[in-house]
Every structure is written in C-alpha cells, then in structure tokens.
C-alpha cells in the first residue's frame, strides 16, 4: 500500500484523474510528483468494491476500482462526504451525455494541490486486481444513480413509527473517553484510562485533541500521530474482550475512534463520519469537531469530539462553536435522496472533548484551596460550561454527570503538579463528557491522573445505554402489515368507475334514423382520465355508424358524467348492413388512465332499406325490400353488376320501383312547385317516405309529405346508391367527353341496362320540370349542379373533385338537359 494524491482535472472538455506521489507532509509543489494520468474516456469506470477480509461495516473507508483503457487501479478513499463528492464528480464526468463545462485547470502538480485535490487528499492504493473478480460497472453506477423512492421512504417512516412494537431495550456498556495529548506521541500505556473497569465495555468512543501541533498537520491534515495513537488505543482496550475498529475520523489534531466488540459489529450499520472546522476564518481545523454517527441495532447514535477555543474570557466564542458544529455537522445517508442528518436527529448523542470552558474564579490560589479541600461542588458552581448549560444557551437537553474529580488542566507534563508558569493558568475542567438520550445512564465519570504525558489528564465516562434491539419475528409482522396496507392504498388508488349501463341494444334501426342511448359514468374516489381506445387492428374506437359523446374526458372524485352513444346509419354504412355483411354489433373499450378497462357491448338490428341498395338489386326486387327475404336481399345486393340483364329467371324491372314512385309522385304533383329541390323537407316526412318505400306494396306514393320532402328523399336516394347512376368505372370517360353530346351518349350507352334506364328516366323527368321553370324557378344550371354531383361521383380512393372536375360533371348532365327532340326514357315517365 502506497499513499497517493488524487486530483480530478478538467481541461478543454476532457477530464482525467491525476495521481501524484508525494513526500510525507507535502507542502510545496516540489513535494509532489505526477505519477500517472487516467483519462476519463469511453470505457472509464469507477466501481465500489468490497475488499476481502474486510469488516463489513457500511461507512468505513471506500475502496474503488478505477478502470481506464488497460489501466486498473484499486484505491482506498477515506471516509466522509469529501470522498463522496469526489466520486460524484468523477462519475458525473464518466457518464456519457453530460454537458461539460469548460474548466481550464491545467495538468499541473501545483494546481493539483488546490481545487479538487484538496477535497480528496491522500489515498492509498493497492496492487491492481483482475477485473473478473469485480462486480460490473452497472452495479456501481446503480449505487450512485439510484433515484428517490417514495415507497421505500414510506415503509421506513412507518417502520419507525411502529418501532416499539418490534423492539425492546437492551443494555450495552459504552466507554467514552477524551484526552488532550498536547501534541505528544504516546509514551505510556493507556490501559489505566481505557480499561480500568472490571467489565469490558461493548463500545469504545475515544477522542483526542491536540494530536499534532505541527503546521504540516494544520495545513495538510496529515499526521503520523494518527497511526501512533490509534495503535496505542487499540493496545489499551480492555483485554477481556476482542474489539473491531468501526471508524476513525480526524480533523487536524482532533481524533475520534469508535470500536465495538467484534461479536457486536454485525449490529452496527450506517456509519458515517464528518468534520467541522471552526478555527481561523471559521473553517480551519485547528479548532472544531469531528463526529461519527451509526446505528446500533435500531438505535441511532452520534458521537462528537470537539476542541473549542481557549482562553477564559472566550466562553461566548465557545458557545458559538458548539452551535456551529451542531449546525454544520451533517451526515450523508446511505440513500442519497434522503435528507442530511444533523447531530440532533439521533436517539443518543455522546459529546466529549476539550471544551475549554474555564472557571469563573480566576484566582489560582483560591481555586487550588478549594481543590485541596475537595470542594468540587463549590468549584463546579463557578464552571462556565455549567453556567452556560443552566442558562440554556448551549447543550439544551444534554446532561453531565456530577464531577467528583479535580480539574484536568493544567499540569506540568510528567507529573500531577499544577503548571505554575508565568502564564499561570488557573486549573479548569476543560475535558468533559456530556450526553443526550432517554435511555442513557452514567455509571462513572472520572479523570485518570496516572497518565502524565500531557498537560491535560484524560477523562472517561461509562454509560449504561439502552439500545433498541429488534425482534426479527415481530419486525417481520410489522413489516408485512405495512406492505399490506401500502398495497391496499395502491389498489385503492387505481382509478375505478361504475357505469350505469354496459349493454346497449338498438332495436329496428332505420336508415338515417338518429338513435341515442345514454348512460352515466360515476367516478370512484380517484380522479381519473377516461378515453375510448382503439381495439387491436382497428383505427377507430368504434364502428363508423356509432359515436360516443364525449369520447374522452376527465372526472373528479365522486363526480358523474352523462354519456351518449349515438348511432346513425348513413350512405357509407347502409349497404353492408342491408346485405347482412355488416352487423350492428360492436364492443367499445373504455380505458381509464392507469386503471381498468371496461367493455361496452353495443348490438342491434338494422331494417333493410332501399336507401343504400344497388339499382340492379332493386330492379330485381318486385316486393318492397322489407317484404323480401333477407337471403334474397343479400344475394341481390352482392350480385355483380352486369351490363346485360343477369341470367335470372325473372325479368328485372326497368327501373327501381322506389325511384319510379318518387319521380312519378313529383311528376304528377310537383312540376309547378316553387323552389323544388331547393327547400328541405321535414324530418318526420322523410321517415314516412322511407318507410313507405321500404314496406308498401302499393305502387303509388300516398301523399305522406310535402313535395319538398319527396324531392329531398329522391336526392338522398341517389346519394345513397353504392354505385352511382354513372358507374364508377365510367367516371373518367364521362368527364373526358363532357363537351361532346355524341360521345357522352356513347358513355351512357356503355352503362348497365338498369343504370341506362335510370339515367334516361331522370333526364326525361328533369326536362319535363324545365318546362315549368316559370313556376318552379328551376333552370338547367341549377338542375345540372344538383344532379351532376349525385349522378356522376368519383370512385372511392379518387382525390376529392375540384371545381373544374365538378364543372365537367355538371356539363355532362347539362348537355342532356339541353337536348331538343326525342327523349329516350320519356316512355317510362308516361307509364
């Protein structure tokens, strides 16, 4: 293991990690030397790994494997948020797609001692290992990029609430010690301080101050004394038990060590350490505090070691420093999304250190007299810390045990004699141990005069601490209950509605008859967005003859909405329903966003109608369509259109009788009707005409409606024809010869017989109407405009006809209307 300085350098959009070898206590640029550079490029990974044989305690030093190109490096980084920050910055740069800010830090060792390098100062690296032993980078990144998870947080909070139900208090012995060592190295055994008690403690919290007074320690936070004192403490621990180091944290000369009996180590988790400097500029580490927080079984514990400002009159500064440490010491949590933890946020706080509070009584002689008389109570009344605590200025809720030992400062090193140097410092209880927590009771509080190395005497306190220990079985039960209730909550938050009706029957639906069924959606307790969604392989949420109003919307909790299903069979859907190829059947899927789907069944029956029926089929139907067998309607509707009369036994009618009935009615009654074809009829009149045509065997149209209604029905009939009078295949030729009557006549001659008949019949009728144009206000242009668009229609798939195309169609009709003389089809009209 060798020590290295690591720095993250960013320059011209490229990032790299630079490693430097360095002299012990590097101060200037000459003390460090660039060792190697790892470019942060494709394939660069930083993975947290767990070294073998390491005590599995979360929060201990972080070992990471860095891979860049062929280079692999195993680095152990020290505890704390600085390392986390460093790693975060590195990871941010190795994840692709991150916009890089231009940060022109040159690759210069001198630079490296500032900036990032300072945050991640000395790291020891080991020999590279083979990559195959390591987890994948995906895992490591998963650790750092884990997003916040509400559900987890909820479970955690509820578990905390229910804690009493699955934990019981169990006593553990905590040893807490503090020792200002005045920059000395350990020279004597620490056993008289650390293991005076018969019974070995379960947990050791050992704090030092003034570990190293050198400027190197001050500026670089690096000192060989750390190792020396760590070893001395380890040696001095109670021989009656085996201990594992949980954590070590140091800020310049303030060192805190946490040990636990090896067999209890598995119950320690979530260990984090932090430091707060309160020295020069309120930041430097010559004064301040270090803290370790951890969870022992189910109890959270925070241990703070503080070294506060010296000098008797500075008690207000000390107060301020305590408040600063409390405010600024914030521990990261394992789950990065969770808030930072403060000292206050722990079940138990143990606060030790050289707090440096003096006695208000500064007359050295009088103090010494009281000490000699062992009148510690009288002295304690003059203790600044006690006075400040009583005044509730600091350490509210903290307690201190009764002091029954003489002041711990200031002695002549190597003796138990007071320091009488010219500064003549009055003795004081500088070194103190305080606690906060309901389940803590102090067993002893004493100083240890046997240790003579320093001008301070070490102090120790033994505590009986009640720790919440979890009952696994009861915990499982509590956990189960929480998960169940969470599931219940989640199930209850799935949007859900009730529908007043889910089956819709439309009976005896007729052509162009608007039918509406209503139902209500009642929303449950969850606001929801609903929408009718398309079924697989379909482009619409329902069949073309149906529409839902509204088809989507939003519902407030408990609200109701009236919905309509509107059914209308028009020219585009009638033919298939006539033939039975199509059915009035559909299933609508009402989808709730993030919720259930409801199926709505729609069914009904359609009454066949001459509207939507092909001319040819109607010509073969001697009876009204509703009197014709469905099978026959089907066959006739599907029968291919033949130019000549089909080889059916029966001879077809020349033209559909329904057409004849309408035209004949108009011919007889409406030739002189004002504004014929230009005024609409009434809705019920159309309904009656349709029903008459579809059901009546009489071949006259009983005057069921106004002439306008019959005229409109005629137009609707022509519009509903699945094959227009001028067949689709002749549409183009028809437009091409629109300027030549001769050629137009040839086109008409190419039509199937029944279409020819219908065309000639209609032309004859229209020409008849033109004879009365004085009365009915019709002229060739009006008629050509109206009938052009009905008789000459582009096939489906054809682009929508433009004005020029429409004019040609009108022109085509116009020629026939303008012809003089013999009118084919007139015979039909006269029948």
């Amino acid at each position, binding site marked *: 293991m060798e020590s290295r300085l690591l720095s993250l350098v960013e320059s011209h959009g490229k990032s790299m990690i630079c490693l430097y070898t360095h002299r012990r206590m590097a101060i200037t640029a000459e003390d460090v030397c660039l060792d190697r550079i790892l470019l942060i490029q494709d394939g660069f990974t930083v993975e947290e790994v767990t070294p073998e044989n390491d005590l599995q305690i979360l929060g201990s030093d972080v070992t990471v494997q860095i891979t860049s190109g062929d280079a692999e490096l195993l680095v152990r980084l020290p505890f704390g948020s600085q390392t986390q920050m460093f790693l975060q910055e590195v990871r941010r740069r190795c994840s692709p797609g991150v916009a890089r800010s231009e940060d022109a830090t040159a690759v210069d060792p001198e630079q490296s001692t500032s900036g990032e390098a300072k945050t991640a100062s000395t790291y020891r690296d080991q020999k590279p290992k083979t990559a195959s032993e390591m987890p994948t980078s995906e895992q490591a990144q998963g650790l750092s990029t884990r997003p916040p998870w509400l*559900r987890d947080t909820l479970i955690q909070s509820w578990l905390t609430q229910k804690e009493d139900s699955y934990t019981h208090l169990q006593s553990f012995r905590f040893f807490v010690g503090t020792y200002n060592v005045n920059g000395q190295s350990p020279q004597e055994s620490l056993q008289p301080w650390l293991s005076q008690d018969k019974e070995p403690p379960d947990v050791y919290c050992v704090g030092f101050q003034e570990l190293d007074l050198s400027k190197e320690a001050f500026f670089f936070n690096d000192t060989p004394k750390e190792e020396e004192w760590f070893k001395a403490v380890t040696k001095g621990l109670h021989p009656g038990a085996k201990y594992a180091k949980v954590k070590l944290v140091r800020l310049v000369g303030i060192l805190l060590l946490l040990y636990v009996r090896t067999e209890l180590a598995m119950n320690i988790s979530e260990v984090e350490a932090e430091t707060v400097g309160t020295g020069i500029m309120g930041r430097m580490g010559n004064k301040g505090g270090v803290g370790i927080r951890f969870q022992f079984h189910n109890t959270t514990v925070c241990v703070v070691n503080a070294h506060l400002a010296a000098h008797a009159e500075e008690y207000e500064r000390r107060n301020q420093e305590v408040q600063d440490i409390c405010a600024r010491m914030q521990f990261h949590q394992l789950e990065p999304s969770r808030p930072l933890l403060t000292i206050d946020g722990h079940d138990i706080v143990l606060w030790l250190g050289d707090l440096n509070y003096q006695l208000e009584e500064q007359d050295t002689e009088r103090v010494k007299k009281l000490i000699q008389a062992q009148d510690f109570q009288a002295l304690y009344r003059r203790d600044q810390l006690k006075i400040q605590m009583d005044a509730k200025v600091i350490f509210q809720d903290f307690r201190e045990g009764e002091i029954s030992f003489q002041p711990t400062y200031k002695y002549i090193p190597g003796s138990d004699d007071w320091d009488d140097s010219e500064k003549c410092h009055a003795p004081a209880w500088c070194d103190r141990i305080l606690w906060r927590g309901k389940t803590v009771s102090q067993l002893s509080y004493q100083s240890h005069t046997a240790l003579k190395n320093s001008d301070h005497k070490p102090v120790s306190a033994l505590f009986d601490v009640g720790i919440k220990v979890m009952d696994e079985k009861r915990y499982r039960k509590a956990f189960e209950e929480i998960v169940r209730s969470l599931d219940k909550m989640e199930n209850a938050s799935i949007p859900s509605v009730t529908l007043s009706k889910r089956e819709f029957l439309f009976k005896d639906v007729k052509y162009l008859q608007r039918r509406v069924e209503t139902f209500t959606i009642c929303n449950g307790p969850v606001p929801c967005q609903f929408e009718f969604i398309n079924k*697989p392989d379909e482009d619409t949420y329902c069949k073309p003859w149906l529409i839902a109003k509204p088809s989507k919307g939003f519902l407030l909790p408990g609200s109701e909405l009236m919905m309509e299903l509107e059914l209308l069979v028009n020219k585009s859907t009638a033919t298939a329903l006539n033939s039975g190829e199509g059915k009035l059947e559909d299933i609508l899927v009402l989808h709730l966003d993030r919720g259930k789907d409801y199926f709505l069944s729609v069914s009904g029956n359609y009454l066949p109608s001459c509207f939507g029926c092909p001319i040819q089929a109607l010509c073969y139907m001697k009876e009204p369509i509703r009197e014709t067998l469905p099978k026959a309607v089907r066959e006739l509707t599907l029968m291919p259109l033949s130019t000549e009369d089909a080889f059916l036994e029966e001879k077809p009618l020349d033209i559909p009788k329904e057409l004849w009935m309408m035209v004949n009615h108009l011919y007889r009654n409406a030739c002189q009707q004002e504004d014929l074809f230009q005024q609409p009829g009434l809705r019920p009149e159309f309904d009656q005409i349709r029903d008459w045509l579809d059901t009546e065997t009489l071949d006259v149209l009983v005057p069921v409606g106004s002439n306008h209604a019959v005229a409109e029905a005629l137009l609707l009939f022509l519009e509903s024809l699945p094959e227009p009078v001028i067949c689709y295949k002749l549409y183009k030729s028809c437009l091409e010869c629109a300027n030549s009557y001769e050629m137009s006549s040839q086109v008409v001659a190419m039509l199937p017989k029944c279409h020819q008949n219908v065309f000639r019949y209609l032309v004859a009728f229209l020409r008849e109407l033109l004879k009365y144009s004085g009365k009915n206000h019709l002229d060739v242009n009006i008629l050509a405009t109206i009938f052009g668009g009905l008789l000459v229609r582009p096939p489906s798939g054809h682009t929508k006809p433009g004005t020029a195309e429409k004019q040609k169609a009108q022109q085509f009709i116009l020629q026939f209307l303008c012809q003089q003389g013999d009118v084919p089809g007139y015979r039909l009209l006269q029948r």
Partner: protein
Amino acid sequence: MAKKTYDLLFKLLLIGDSGVGKTCVLFRFSDDAFNTTFISTIGIDFKIKTVELQGKKIKLQIWDTAGQERFHTITTSYYRGAMGIMLVYDITNAKSFENISKWLRNIDEHANEDVERMLLGNKCDMEDKRVVPKAKGEQIAREHGIRFFETSAKANINIEKAFLTLAEDILRKTPVKEPNSENVDISSGGGVTGWKSKCC
C-alpha cells in the same frame, strides 16, 4: 432495518371461461376475502400485491380478464407483456375444462414466447359437484409441461401458493439486475398499459 429494496415488477394474467372464479382467485390473493355474489367481469381489472421471494420484494400486478367468449378477441390483446398466465377452470364445470386447450392455443398465439403458464382447477371445495377428476387436470398439465394446482378461492386453498410458485418460476428466469431507472415507475402503479401503448 437498512434493508435494500430490490424490487421487480411481474405482470400476471388470469384467463379462463366465464364463471370459473378468476376474479375470486384474485380477490382472495389480494384482499384475502371472498365474495359469493357473481359479478361477471366485463373488461380488464387489475390489482397489485407485493410479495417477498428469495429476499427480493416483488410487485405483482395481476390482471383479471373478462371470460365471456364475445370478448375473446379483445382480451387476447392483453396477453402480450404478461410474464405469467394463470389459466383457470372450474372442477364442477366440464365445459370450462374442455376449453383448456383452446385457451392454451390462445396463449401460444398471443402471449410472449417465454411466458410462464400455470393451470388452476378452481372450486375444489365443492367436492360433491366435481365433474373433472384431479387426475385429468394433472394429465393435461403434464402434457403441456406446466404446473397445476387445484384451488379454492372460497376455502382459501392453494391460492397464495399458486401465485408465489408462479412468481418464483418467473423470478428464476429473470436475470438478476440492480434496480435501475427502468423500473422506477413501479411504485406509482404506472406501467399499466395494455395494447394501447403499442399503437401510440
């Protein structure tokens, strides 16, 4: 207490003839309750339940489908995306058992290739009305290489076991992965999409 949550989301589907007790099976598993009144499921319903398997917390999102024949073309479109399908018949209803092969064909045609299937003979508390012997259920399951349980939602027999077994079978095939951003929305009850998401 600092247990890490390794969550996975498994989507399960209940299919089978109308009236075999799919909704009751689900209701028993999710709410540990039973309702005797028969309300035909007309649509797609779902519930969630979190279970722990091999130390992993797994969220089961269980879809209950309409069993009526007229809805089959629609319901089959929900098969896609299901990781496990429970095919339920009624041991007191021979027809529901005869239809098993039709349902299995449906799964072959519409579900993911690697879907875990399971056959349940429900209403096994009604021994006096039984028309499908247990052996026949076992036989057809063996022929198709799928697991089989006789269950009773009413008497709470084998319901939990069936679901946990199915989830375990899926888990066995699931590559172990760290949680990542992909399954974040699990907690919100999101990811609830049928075929709708396909066409958008």
